[in-house]
C-alpha cells in the first residue's frame, strides 16, 4: 500500500476526533495528533482500534506509545503491513 494512501486513510480516521478542525486543512506527516489536532488523549485508544480494523493488523500497546505525529502513525502502519 502506498504511503499517501495510508496517510489519507489515517487522516480520514482521525477526522471525527479532531477538535481543531482548522488544523486539518494543513495536515501533514509532522502534524502532532494531540498538540496540533487537539485529539483528546483518551480517544487514542479508539483511533488505534480503527487503524487495526481499517488496515487489518494488530498494534500492541508499546507501539501505540510511539505514535505522536500523523507521520508516526503512517510509518507504524506501513511497517506492520510489511511484516
Amino acid at each position, binding site marked *: 500500500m502506498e504511503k499517501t494512501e495510508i496517510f489519507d486513510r489515517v487522516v480520514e480516521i482521525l*477526522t*471525527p*476526533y*479532531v*477538535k*481543531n478542525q482548522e488544523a486539518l486543512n494543513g495536515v501533514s506527516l509532522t502534524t502532532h495528533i494531540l498538540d496540533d489536532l*487537539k485529539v*483528546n488523549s*483518551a*480517544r*487514542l*485508544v*479508539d483511533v488505534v*482500534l480503527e487503524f487495526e480494523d481499517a488496515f487489518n493488523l494488530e498494534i500492541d500497546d508499546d507501539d501505540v506509545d510511539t505514535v505522536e505525529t500523523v507521520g508516526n502513525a503512517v510509518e507504524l502502519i506501513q511497517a506492520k503491513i510489511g511484516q
Partner: protein
Amino acid sequence: MTRRVVVTGLGVVAPNANGVRDFELALRKGRSGIRTNEKMIESGFGSHVAGVPEGIDELAESYFSADLLLAMNSGHRCAAIAGVDAWTDAGFARPDPDADEVDWDTGAVLGTGIGGMDTIAKSVVPLTDAGRVRRLGSVAVEQVMSSGVSARLSGILALGNQVTTNSSACSTGSEAIAMGLERIRCGLAKRMLCGGAEGVSHYIWAGFDAMRVLCRRFNDAPERASRPMSATAAGFVPSAGAGILMLESLESAQDRGTRILAEVAGSAINCGGQRGGGSMTAPNSDGVRRCIKAALADARVAPEEVGAINGHLTATSADPREVDSWAAALECSPSALPPITSTKSMIGHALGAAGGIESVACVLMLQGGFVHPSINCEDVHPEIEPYAASIPHAALQTPDLRVVVKAGFGFGDVNTCLVFRKWSE
C-alpha cells in the same frame, strides 16, 4: 429568609414531541407518542409498544461535534439535547468548547433511573465475555457510569458548580428538581439544570416485561396502550427521553433581567419505608400523603389553592390508591379534587426521565393557562369513578391556573412532590 427559586429555561425530548413549543402543542392536542416497537417483538416481550422520541440521532448530529457524538449513547443524547435547550431557553449562549471559562455559579442534578444499559448490553458484556476487552475502547466507562448524563452536559456547557446524578427509580427526575431547589435556596449555587434522562433500549425495559407490569393488552393499538386511571389500564408503557429545567435564584434571574417561566414554590422528598402496604414496588400511601402535604407546607400553599395535579399515574393497579391519596392529602371530597392529569397517558413512562419531562409539562400548563388532557381513560376505573369529573379528556382552558402540584413515586417506596406556581412578584 428563604431564597425564592424560579424556572428560567426548559428543554424536552419526549416520545410525542421534541422541543418545548412542539411539546406544548402535543400536550394540548393529547397526542400520543406510543408506537409499535419491533425490538420488543423480536425479543419475545409480552408488550409490543413503547414511547421512543423521534429523530434523536439527527437532532444530536445537528447539536454536537463528531468527537462528542462518538461517546454518546442514547441516554446521553436525550440529556444533552434537552440540557442545551434549557440553557439557551434561559438566555445563555453555548460556550466555546476551546475557551477556558467555567460557569462556577451553575451546576446540574441530572438523574437517570437505569443508566447506560444499552452500552452494557451491546458492548461491555458481549466483548468482555468474548475475551475482547480491548475492543471496548475509551468510551465504555463514561457511558455506563451513572453520572454519565450529568458529566456529559457539564462538559458541553462548562458547568462549574455541583454536577451530579441522582437515582431514585421513577421518582428520579422529580427528585433532581427538589435537590436543585434546595441547593439554590441554601445559597450554594445561582443556577442548577435539573431533571432526568433515560435512554432508548429494550434491554432497559426487559425486566419490567418479565415482572408483567408492562401493558400487553393493546399491542394492536399503541396509541391507546397507555391508559392511566382507566378501567382497562393494563400496565405501563415504557418510554425514554429527557426533561430539564433551569432553576435559578430569583435574585440571579432579576439581575440578568431574564424571562421567568414559573416559580418552584416548594418540594418534599420522603420514603414510605416499605411498610404499611409499601414494598420495593408499591408505595406506602401514608408516605405518599405525607410527601404531598410536606411539599405544600414547604411552599406555604393551602390545599384549596392547588389548581391542577400532575400525578405519577402510570396505568398500573396503583392508580386508584394514588388518586385517593391526593384527595386525602388535599383534604377534599372526591368531587372537589382539582383537575388531575397524567402526562404518561401520552408519552408512556419515561422512568428516570418521567419527572423531568412531566415537570416541563407543569411549567407549560402554568404559562399557557391550560391543563393537558389525560387520554385513554374515557372508561374511568370504577374505584376512581367518584373523581371522574376531575379528569380532563380534552385540554382545559384555565387562564387563572396558579398552582400545579407534581408527584413522582419510585421503586424502593420513594416519593417526591413538587409545587410549581405561576410567577408573580
